[in-house]
């Protein structure tokens, strides 16, 4: 099968080519490459391709089936959309790394064996890091370093799991794992779980994403967590622990989002919440559950990308990212508001938007197995999602004040940013209105109809009454300039203590030794410079012959003493010789 091209390799080739062409063409190359990747992967027939032999194992670089194809397709779609949104960008480093990032996410989904998966997995971490560091300020630098360390830790968990798994079973294939008594499987699930931001391994996400570049955050929001969702769906479908953790995640994210002040941190916590639905659906493990998770990942990437684009426009325009410093932008950024709200309505699951047709599948799957606690908590998460992303954020950013603070100078918005948002918003509505466009490509056949009377009534009641509760208590939601501690406290807070113990302690020992030694050396120099000092040291404590201008009155007594001593020795020697 030599005619098969791996879409990731094509995109990586494009990424390498990109910095070599003139600036003017780079953004176009970005879009063309990702579009070509999309077309190629969509045309791939199901099966295993590009198998190579490595250390006695057969590696499958390209394993195509319904599950991998739909995930890879949405990764490529959001890359195209992000490319349009970032068309104005003149930064080859960011463009190249975004393409490599997307290519490796696609590489993970098509990986048929754990070794290929791991290589793309790590490449993804490295490329995504560049999108954080490209912001080029101190805060991003530090957050990027934490992101790197956490992901290296996650990668190590995964690698340890893979090695144990291979030594236990002798198989490198990415396949459904069942054994809950195997340590290897728990290592692998932890490695995947870290990238899916499952608490307590979640804190890297709201820590790093708000500090990425405006355009980089769009790719970040789409790729890392959803590749992990894909990997979990492929390998751990039906593991009940995922249902429990996923359900907790849905509510965990929304509660933190109520407190968030930074707009992209708020949206980041909603990634955790939304990924919770997907993780829970995988934990349910039925056809409906896995279909629901897949569909929700597809929808989520579109509307979350759109929301991050909207937040990015706010930051680009005002230079600010905190709700406590925004407000009153309705007259100045009306198009952004409308497009952002499409994303907001989608994530909240309003009918006719794509969240409605996918999130409900997961909730339905939980209902099918009569897990009513999960149903209640997921619906509570929907209340919180509507509250924070669609009511609180737009209210505090666009309304709340008559006009923005006087010191805000609005930068012009490049038209391509709004075009990127518009295209993504169009897809959100398209799949919401015509869900079968998506349902037909899900891994299992779908027997689900989102637009039933009961579902519409239930959704309408929840969302309308959420709105009234919000309106009554909206003053309570005022943003405050505070940060929220998450599980990152456990590695950031001891930072000072560890630094004191390992760095400051060692440094102070060096410092003391240094001082003592230098004092000794200085004393020696003092005596060595002028031998008369040695005598002066004992005779005239306050004055040093070296440090003064030459004064014969000071040197005379010591010089006399020395010459007398020499003469005395001379006399003694002569006396001895004569006698």
């Amino acid at each position, binding site marked *: 099968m030599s005619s098969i091209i791996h879409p990731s390799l094509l995109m990586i080739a494009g990424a390498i080519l990109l910095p070599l062409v003139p600036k003017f063409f780079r953004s176009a190359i970005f879009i063309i490459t990702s579009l070509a990747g999309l077309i190629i992967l969509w045309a791939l027939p199901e099966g295993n391709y590009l198998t190579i032999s490595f250390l006695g194992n057969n590696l499958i670089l390209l394993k195509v089936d319904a599950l991998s194809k739909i995930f890879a397709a949405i990764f490529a779609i959001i890359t195209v959309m992000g490319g349009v949104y970032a068309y104005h960008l003149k930064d080859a480093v960011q463009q190249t790394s975004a393409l490599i990032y997307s290519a490796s996410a696609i590489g993970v989904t098509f990986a048929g064996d754990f070794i290929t998966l791991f290589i793309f997995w790590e490449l993804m971490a490295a490329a995504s890091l560049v999108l954080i560091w490209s912001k080029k300020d101190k805060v991003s630098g530090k957050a990027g370093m934490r992101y790197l360390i956490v992901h290296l830790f996650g990668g190590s968990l995964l690698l340890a799991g893979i090695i144990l798994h291979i030594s236990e079973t002798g198989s490198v294939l990415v396949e459904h794992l069942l054994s809950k008594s195997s340590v290897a499987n728990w290592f692998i699930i932890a490695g995947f779980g870290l990238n899916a931001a499952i608490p307590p391994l979640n804190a890297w996400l709201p820590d790093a994403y708000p500090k990425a570049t405006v355009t980089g955050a769009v790719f970040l929001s789409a790729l890392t967590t959803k590749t992990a969702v894909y990997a979990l769906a492929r390998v751990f479908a039906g593991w009940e622990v995922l249902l429990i953790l996923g359900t907790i995640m849905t509510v965990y994210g929304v509660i933190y989002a109520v407190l968030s002040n930074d707009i992209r941190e708020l949206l980041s916590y909603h990634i955790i919440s939304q990924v919770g639905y997907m993780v829970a659906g995988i934990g349910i493990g039925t056809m409906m559950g896995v279909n629901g998770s897949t569909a929700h990942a597809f929808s989520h990437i579109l509307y979350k990308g759109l929301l991050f684009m909207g937040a990015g426009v706010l930051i680009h325009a005002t230079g600010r990212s905190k709700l406590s410093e925004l407000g009153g932008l309705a007259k100045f950024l009306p198009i952004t508001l409308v497009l952002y709200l499409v994303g907001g309505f989608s994530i909240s699951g309003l009918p006719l938007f794509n969240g409605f047709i996918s999130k409900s599948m997961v909730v339905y799957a939980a209902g*099918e197995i009569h897990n009513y606690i999960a149903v209640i908590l997921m619906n509570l998460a929907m209340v919180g999602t509507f509250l924070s992303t669609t009511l609180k954020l737009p209210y505090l950013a666009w309304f709340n004040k008559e006009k923005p603070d006087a010191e805000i100078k609005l930068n012009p918005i490049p038209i391509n940013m709004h075009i990127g948002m518009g295209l993504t918003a169009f897809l959100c509505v398209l799949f919401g209105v015509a869900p079968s466009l998506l349902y037909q490509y899900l891994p299992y056949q779908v027997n689900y109809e989102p637009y039933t009377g009961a579902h519409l009534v239930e959704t309408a009641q929840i969302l309308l*009454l959420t709105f009234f509760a919000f309106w009554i208590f909206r003053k309570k939601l005022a943003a405050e300039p505070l940060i929220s501690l998450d599980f990152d406290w456990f590695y950031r*807070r001891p930072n000072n203590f560890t630094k004191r113990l390992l760095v400051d302690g060692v440094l102070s020992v060096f410092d003391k030794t240094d001082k003592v030694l230098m004092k000794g050396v200085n004393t020696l120099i003092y005596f060595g410079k002028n031998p008369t000092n040695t005598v002066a040291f004992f005779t005239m404590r306050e004055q040093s012959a070296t440090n003064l201008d030459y004064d014969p009155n000071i040197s005379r007594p010591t010089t006399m003493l020395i010459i007398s001593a020499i003469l005395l020795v001379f006399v003694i020697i002569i006396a001895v010789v004569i006698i």
Partner: protein
Amino acid sequence: MKRWQLITLIVLTLISLVSEFFVEHDPNHSSAWWSGIPFFWALFGFAGCIILIFFAKYILKTLVQRREDYYE
């Protein structure tokens, strides 16, 4: 909020409440504890929103929110 907006929302709410009696309920939830409570999801949305706001702003806030220079 303008008057017409408020009226529209109230009308929509009334429609959603009344139509509850005319739609076929989700068979998966027929044995759920809430299946007999009228307007359950409306009450849920209202109460859930208030609980989230107050839990976050009064309980969680004191536990996890700190000054912005906390880690420095």
